[in-house]
């Protein structure tokens, strides 16, 4: 952020950081108990019998998992804080899913970046370093329940250290890339990386 902020006459603010949440809420965010939804189109509903998660390179499949095969992989339960670019943050959300380390570990070869692709045509780009090392999951449960379609079910990415648009809903796989390429929101002016602690909301932030 640049310079001094202009004081807004008569503004005091109501919503300070809740007790116990100090240091957990990035700049410009507020804590919500709800779970707001943001998406650009209708919610897709792919039957689980047709669902796969694929790792691709150059458009060709390196490895695919059916829903049953994905469920057979070792899963982890994680409790994390999430931060949406529309300014809500939600603390201590609980998810269950397969680490991307497990999925990418079954595929040969190096890549610098991934482009996640989804039902409905949504995409988002992430550095490989941000989806490995225990920092990203293919999540299929929220709060001990199957993930609701509205929130990205049957499965979404969970990359909690970045703004939540990077945690792609309805994800169907990742394309391995050598160079970074913008995904859907990144093409429309949102930040290529999206670190909430640096408030990287828009291109140039």
């Amino acid at each position: 952020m640049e310079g001094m902020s202009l004081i807004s006459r008569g503004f005091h603010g109501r919503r300070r950081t809740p007790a116990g949440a100090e240091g957990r809420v990035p700049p410009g965010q507020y804590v919500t108990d709800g779970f707001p939804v943001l998406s650009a189109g209708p919610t897709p509903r792919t039957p689980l019998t047709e669902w796969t998660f694929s790792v691709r390179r150059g458009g060709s499949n390196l490895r695919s998992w059916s829903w049953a095969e994905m469920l057979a992989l070792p899963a982890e339960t994680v409790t994390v804080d999430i931060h949406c670019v529309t300014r809500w943050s939600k603390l201590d959300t609980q998810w269950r899913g397969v680490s991307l380390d497990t999925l990418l570990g079954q595929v040969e070869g190096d890549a610098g970046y991934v482009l996640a692709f989804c039902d409905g045509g949504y995409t988002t780009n992430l550095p490989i370093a941000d989806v490995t090392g225990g920092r990203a999951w293919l999540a299929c449960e929220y709060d001990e329940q199957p993930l609701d379609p509205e929130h990205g079910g049957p499965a979404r990415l969970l990359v909690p250290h970045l703004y939540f648009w990077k945690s792609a809903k309805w994800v169907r796989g990742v394309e391995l890339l050598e160079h970074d390429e913008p995904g859907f929101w990144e093409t429309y002016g949102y930040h290529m990386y999206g670190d909430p602690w640096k408030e990287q909301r828009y291109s140039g932030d």
Partner: protein
Amino acid sequence: MEGTALQRRLTWQAATVTAAAWETPSVRTLELAVPGWPGHRAGQHLDVRLTAEDGYAAERSYSIASAPGEPVAITVERLEDGEVSPYLTGELRIGDTLELRGPVGGYFVWAEADGGPLLLVAGGSGVVPLRAIIRQRRRSGSDAPIRMLYSARTLPDVIYRDELDSYRNGVAVSYALTRARPPGWTGYARPVDAGMLAEVAWPAGEEPLVFVCGPTGFVETVAGELVGLGYSPGRVKTERFGGI
């Protein structure tokens, strides 16, 4: 389509309130003078930042209510348990300044070249960016026909009612009042459902371009029903608000 707005860095700038008007008892439109405003497209939004004397700041996004080329305006619904909207509706006066940056967003937008026909579906204050689209159609001289379906609790809750009722020549607005109706009301008297959409919406074969904006549950229902009516999901653009 995306292009220029992407490379420009969005910096905070001071805006001065030049006009304020109540649309309903709880919804206020603020017209803003923004020196160096780069221009916007119909459907985009902007970010507002308020800063208290102790440095505490709160930011929110608001849809731009005006068409490109018109003075920048936002229309704000007062949320009683909100933090920013009570200030913008209750405290801010003409001549005051606030900080904003924008425009933001490039997907939920319409320009003359995008053509039509257009179906606009609004829930409550979700009408704001759709109003910018209708005004842009008029300003650009587009002949893309528009059908709008606007769901509100009661008639006094309808935002921009005089303006919406004044449109003719290719803009048809239907209302669905969900809570109470005035005597003699001939519009819809129930929440938006599949039957209502089938009556109001363009036949899917005309390949309309659709913009749906409103609360999450409303948008989920409408977008899902439109896909059920044969609309192409890729032509149904949605914007939802859920948080406060």
